[in-house]
């Protein structure tokens, strides 16, 4: 039996999921900053949906469309004021088929 488990990009994993994106109303906002805090920087690795990325100025940006609403970024960064965190409006966001 041949066994192949290929490496899957996070983006491709998220394609399997169902989302209802609330266009133009992101539920998480990164506050403007010059240099990201250690926790905010960590999110570029730790966010399981890879919503956080560094831009070419070394600042962290978020694209919340693929967010699975786990809350990890809130736990790490809300208190320090790095991000503003809310749940999406009712009905929007990730819709787990299996959960």
């Amino acid at each position, binding site marked *: 039996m041949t066994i192949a488990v290929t490496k899957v990009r996070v983006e491709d994993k998220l394609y399997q999921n169902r989302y209802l994106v609330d266009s133009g109303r992101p539920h998480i906002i990164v506050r403007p900053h010059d240099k990201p805090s250690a926790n905010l920087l*960590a999110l570029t690795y730790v966010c399981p949906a890879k919503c956080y990325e560094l831009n070419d100025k070394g600042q962290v940006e978020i694209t919340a469309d693929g967010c699975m609403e786990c809350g990890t970024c809130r736990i790490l960064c809300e208190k320090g004021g790095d991000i503003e965190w809310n*749940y999406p409006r009712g009905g929007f966001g990730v819709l787990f088929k299996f959960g």
Partner: protein
Amino acid sequence: MIEQFDAIVVGAGMSGNAAAYTLASQGLKVLQLERGEYPGSKNVQGAIMYANMLEKIIPDFRDDAPLERHLVEQRLWVLDDTSHTGIHYRSDDFNEAKPNRYTIIRAQFDKWFSRKVREAGATVLCETTATELVRDGNGKVIGVRTDRAGGVVFANVVVLAEGVSGLLGTRAGLREMPKPETVALAVKEMHFLPEEVIGQRFGVKGDEGCVIEAVGTISRSMAGLGFLYTNKESISLGIGCLVSDFAATMESPSALLDAMKNHPSIRPLIAGSEVKEYAAHLIPEGGYKAIPQLFGDGWVIVGDAAQLNNAIHREGSNLAMTSGRVAAEAIIKVKSRNGPMTKANLALYKTMLDDSFVIKDLKKYKDMPALLHTNSSNFFDSYPRLMSHAAQNFMRVDGTPKIEKEKNTTAAFINARSRWGLVSDAVRLALAWR
């Protein structure tokens, strides 16, 4: 006219449904709010469901609840990079008329549970995010603001079943936000395979199921646990580690999951599967010491929002269901003697919960989270490697006298941890387990 409810339940997960069902079936006027499109659409769990705790709420749930497999076998694996050392427990006793544990798929199970809640008479409002608690001049919680137009609803008591990352309780200062070291981030994939293939690979037939839980180098020195749960036609496969450890190591959760899938002990079990969902969720891991104030004027907190999760035994939804039911029973008792929903009267919930397995179990392991948090590289890396080396040294027949093999194994343990370190780890583990 303003509609007034006896109780508003925020959230339609295990604890919220248990509370709403219990309250409504006793004739209380209940409103339940759920932000998802349907109950379950925001909920993630492994998932194993324990029958006893649901039986106490819906005794005949087996008649129509969507259950996947009942569990007859459990394996605990300690992994290093290429091997696993394991304990298996399998018993035909688990093939009983009313099985003890089942695997479930939460989106389906929660839809079923929510239907029961509606049938019991509660009003369930989906696609509605609760944004704020509403209080009167004395600070008593009297309702909930929602994101619907003009969306304030009022009740005598609000049951906060909003999950570990719920906004209401933390924003109102009723509970602290979980700390990175008291929550785990788990990621999970649903791997679909034909029913017979799962049966063959895990050695089960019909509705029998098998669970594999794995600790070791798959969590890369972080405090974590991997799992494979067999459903009827799928395997729930995931791994969770403390958020504080993720932040410190900057490991990618999805890469961690992929590496676990590639482990030589795990890869053959999921070979050829079709992945249909990738999910992430926080799990409260703070244990007894992280439980917030559970009640106040006009409110109670249940389930994950109250940190009611037994990380050591991987029991969460049964504590959630039980706390939801107990909170509802306390509310019903207060109402039946025409008492107002004050802090003093709702203290009954805590008294009743203290008397249940929920608090007793969490109290037993109160020192465990701190031990695992501060000692993760030993328990999740050094020891798994040592165990594997010891086992392989023992199994491999190569002409080395046994006495030398034993000396090698002992020396490896002492080199890695020192005599004092080994004794102190053993003592600390024993004390925390007590």
